[in-house]
């Protein structure tokens, strides 16, 4: 008989704190906007594309855009990637929802209420500003968006090539927001914050992005400026048709996602030999693995361990670049501990594109407005409220904390919209609604659950691409074709439904071990309590992934031991709950309530809920 007193050990896990189950939904936790990923994947599985689109839109506002170009922090986080090799193709399933949603979704968008008399100015028509508009228009705000360019979209439009993100998709999703009644002032660059402040807006939101590409000050940089380009400026010129050609041999300096867009765009403008020059080995690349794959599929060569030393020109014409050949020592934890130069190498080039990062730039904000900037000339912004040091002026997106990505901009926009609303209503910005949760049993019958609980061993579907020959014909041939119906149907079944939570009631447990015996991934253990370090050594299977929580129950009635669940690899098959003779385990659908501006508004603007 094993029996033990509770003794020293972990306190019972507090599952009433919404963060606990939220973290179990790895994708949703990793998503800055906390999109209900398993929720919309189930809707796709049911063929409810429009509902899936709306559920997405509620969190991330731009499902069609993000379904193509999101940085997808959800996918590296996906539990499926730990259980087997490849995560669920979450991002591309989002595109499936966007591709197949029917036009009727527009009828379900929040309707603008009667005007509340408050005027808000948004500077820049990128994802952050558009999200603010999306959240505030239904509450009755009068929203004006100022955009320097002739088209809205910000970097989504100017920096993401159309072969990855077609203009129609941008137009549609931006149109949905502007269509709620925003005043869009295109070709209207704000030259002075002081002047804008003078126009009497109740709040100003700055979503101007990080529009300045970093420079590479090396010998010969200015000898042939016509053939040395700054990546993001060059992409913008291509997007608006100002540049239509490039030389045969092109070198891209830097290996982030902008570099990937630059090399692939070069191939479409006539380049035959494109090399991406990386200072460090592949494990240190900033570009997402899938963007690297897509570039290499197009025969772009990625050269590692080459640090740029000088631009080489002859008679005022660029001939190429000289690089130091680098060697690195890497320690067991994968960090560089030493580097040395082992030689030099010349690479010929007709054009060089610099894609080594970008910065914020605020030449238009006067420095005497009570709006503080730090020593890097970046405005001081509260990370929770997004308010600057001047009340009523808010920042979001890349303009707030430097370059991140679209999905972060969207979440900044949501949070800034809450602040703007509270500011305009004269309420405390910090008094924000906390996240909430709803748990509802998924049990439908003796062995029936309201979700597809069986584990489908299918492998990740491959995204079909347009042939290499065809895609280089024109600049705007979209490379990815989107999943076919069959592929989508197979891919949705790979989702592990991590939002259908294993909820345990200790007082019902008779310690029969049925759940432990049936669990396919051995994530359950009944044992005496202990510290986390101790417990992790005593579980049924190795529990070495410390980023994943251990659930610890209250003391069990018969022996005083505890039920411990290692959340790491649970496939949410529900067999523990099916096998439990006393229903101590139940599978409960977790719904996160992550408040937006509309939730801060007084009734009747109650949040709409899509799907379950």
């Amino acid at each position, binding site marked *: *008989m*094993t*029996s033990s007193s509770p003794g020293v050990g972990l306190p019972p896990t507090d599952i009433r704190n919404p963060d606990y189950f939220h973290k179990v939904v790895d994708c949703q936790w990793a998503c800055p906007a906390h999109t209900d990923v398993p929720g919309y994947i189930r809707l796709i599985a049911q063929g409810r594309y429009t509902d899936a689109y709306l559920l997405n839109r509620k969190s991330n506002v731009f499902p069609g855009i993000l379904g193509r170009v999101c940085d997808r922090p959800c996918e590296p986080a996906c539990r499926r990637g*730990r*259980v*087997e090799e490849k995560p669920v193709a979450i991002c591309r399933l989002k595109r499936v929802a966007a591709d197949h949603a029917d036009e009727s979704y527009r009828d379900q968008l929040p309707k603008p209420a009667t005007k509340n008399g408050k005027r808000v100015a948004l500077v820049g028509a990128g994802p952050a500003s558009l999200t603010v508009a999306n959240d505030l228009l239904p509450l009755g705000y009068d929203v004006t968006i100022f955009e320097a360019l002739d088209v809205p979209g910000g970097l989504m439009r100017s920096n993401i090539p159309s072969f990855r993100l077609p203009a129609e998709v941008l137009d549609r999703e931006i149109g949905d927001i502007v269509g709620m009644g925003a005043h869009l002032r295109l070709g209207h660059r704000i030259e002075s914050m002081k002047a804008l402040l003078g126009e009497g807006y109740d709040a100003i939101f700055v979503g101007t992005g990080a529009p300045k590409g970093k420079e590479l000050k090396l010998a010969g940089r200015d000898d042939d400026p016509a053939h040395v380009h700054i990546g993001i400026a060059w992409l913008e010129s291509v997007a608006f048709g100002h540049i239509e050609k490039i030389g045969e041999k092109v070198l891209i300096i830097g290996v982030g996602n902008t570099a990937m867009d630059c090399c692939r765009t070069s191939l479409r403008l006539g380049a035959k030999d494109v090399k991406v020059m990386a200072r460090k080995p592949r494990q240190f690349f900033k570009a997402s693995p899938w963007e690297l794959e897509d570039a290499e599929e197009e025969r772009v060569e990625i050269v590692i361990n080459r640090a740029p030393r000088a631009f080489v020109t002859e008679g005022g014409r660029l001939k190429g670049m000289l690089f130091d050949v680098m060697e690195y020592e890497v320690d067991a934890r994968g960090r560089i501990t030493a580097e040395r130069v082992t030689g030099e190498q010349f690479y010929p080039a007709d054009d060089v594109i610099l894609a080594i990062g970008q910065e914020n730039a605020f030449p238009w904000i006067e420095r005497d407005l009570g709006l503080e900037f730090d020593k890097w000339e970046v405005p001081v912004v509260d990370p929770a409220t997004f308010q600057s040091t001047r009340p009523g002026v808010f920042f979001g997106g890349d303009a707030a904390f430097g370059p991140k990505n679209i999905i972060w901009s969207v979440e900044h926009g949501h949070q800034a919209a809450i602040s703007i609303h509270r500011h305009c209503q004269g309420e405390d910005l910090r008094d924000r609604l906390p996240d909430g949760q709803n748990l509802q049993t998924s049990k439908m019958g003796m*062995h*029936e659950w309201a979700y597809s*609980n*069986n*584990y489908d*061993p299918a492998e990740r579907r491959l995204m079909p691409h347009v042939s290499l020959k065809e895609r280089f014909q024109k600049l705007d041939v979209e490379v990815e074709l989107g999943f076919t119906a069959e592929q989508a149907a197979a891919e949705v079944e790979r989702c592990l439904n991590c939002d259908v939570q294993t909820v345990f009631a200790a007082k019902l447990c*008779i*310690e*029969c*071990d*049925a759940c*432990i*015996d*049936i669990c*396919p*991934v*051995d*994530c359950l253990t009944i044992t005496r309590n202990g510290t986390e370090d101790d417990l992790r050594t005593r579980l049924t*299977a*190795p529990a*070495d992934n410390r980023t994943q929580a251990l659930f610890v129950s209250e003391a069990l009635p*018969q*022996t005083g031991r505890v039920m411990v669940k290692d959340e790491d*690899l649970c*496939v949410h*098959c529900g*067999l523990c709950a*099916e*096998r*439990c*003779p*006393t229903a101590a385990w139940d599978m409960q659908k977790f719904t996160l309530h992550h408040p937006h501006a509309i939730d801060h508004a007084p009734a009747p603007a109650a949040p709409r809920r899509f799907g379950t």
Partner: protein
Amino acid sequence: MSYIAKPKVAHPQLPKNDLGFTVRDYEGAMSTLCAGCGHDSITSAIIQAAFEQSIPPHRLAKMSGIGCSSKTPAYFASASHGINTVHGRMPAVATGANAANPDLYYVGVSGDGDSLSIGLGQFLHAVRRNLNMVYVLENNGVYGLTKGQFSASADLGSKAKKGETNQQPPIDPVQTLVSLGATFVARSFSGDKEQLVPLIRAALAHRGFAFIDVISPCVTFNDHEGSTKSYTFTRKHAHVAMYADYVAPAKEIRAEYAAGAAMPVTLHDGSRIVLRKADGAYDPTDQAAAFSYLTKATAAGEIPTGLLYLKTGRPDMHELANTPDVPLATMAWEKVCPGSATLGKIQDRFR
């Protein structure tokens, strides 16, 4: 039971045994027993023990009779041999199988009905022959398949689910076997794998009849107040009389034992069982003392568990019958069956 089978997906870092198998390689078909049945836990303990013993699954032979318990060999070691025999007749069939091929590991799974009622005679005679097998008796005190009547192991005064009281004294298989001089007699509880798994490992290593009586609550018909085979009752009254730590061959005995408190017993394959007394006066190698202890403890309302009686070195069935070293199953046919002329000669000797 479940509609979906246990998915094949497994924890990527599952430990492997000497053969390179994970514990998942010792699983069988999906159980169709009631959710929470003690038998499923015992199945899982057998899987764990076979894995830890690195037994090649195809060297296992699973034997059973009829009853809920006797269904369970289908739920472990799919890649092994097995036969689901007639009610109570598993010991005879196991004897035949063992006679033909003593090189396999025989694991018999039976229940209190199968072993103590219809098959009692078969059971006891297999003990007398010291048949080399592991015999697990999944003991829940009721006939589950026929809706919960008292079985021969139901305790006096214990109550059925509908309220009637059992008035016939039980057959205690442990006391019975100790009195018969069985060579390995243990008792455990389905809800205590820490005890059960080492016992099964030791039983697999033991040469001779290794018997384990496992209290295995019937969640459907015998897990209520008034039952003496419920999870709660067993946990309250089980009393470890003897700890048995199994130590594989060639492994050092690592744990430190106080002098006099521990007794290592070496088995024929070189593995050892370290017997640790929970109760000072008890000697599990002394038949009379063990029997006396068990009767007293049981009369006092305790359920003694652990390895309760162990006798090594007694000849098993093959040694008693002086059979050849080569299994009959693999012997040349002419030798196993030398023909009618030879039979005639043998018969002539008796005329």
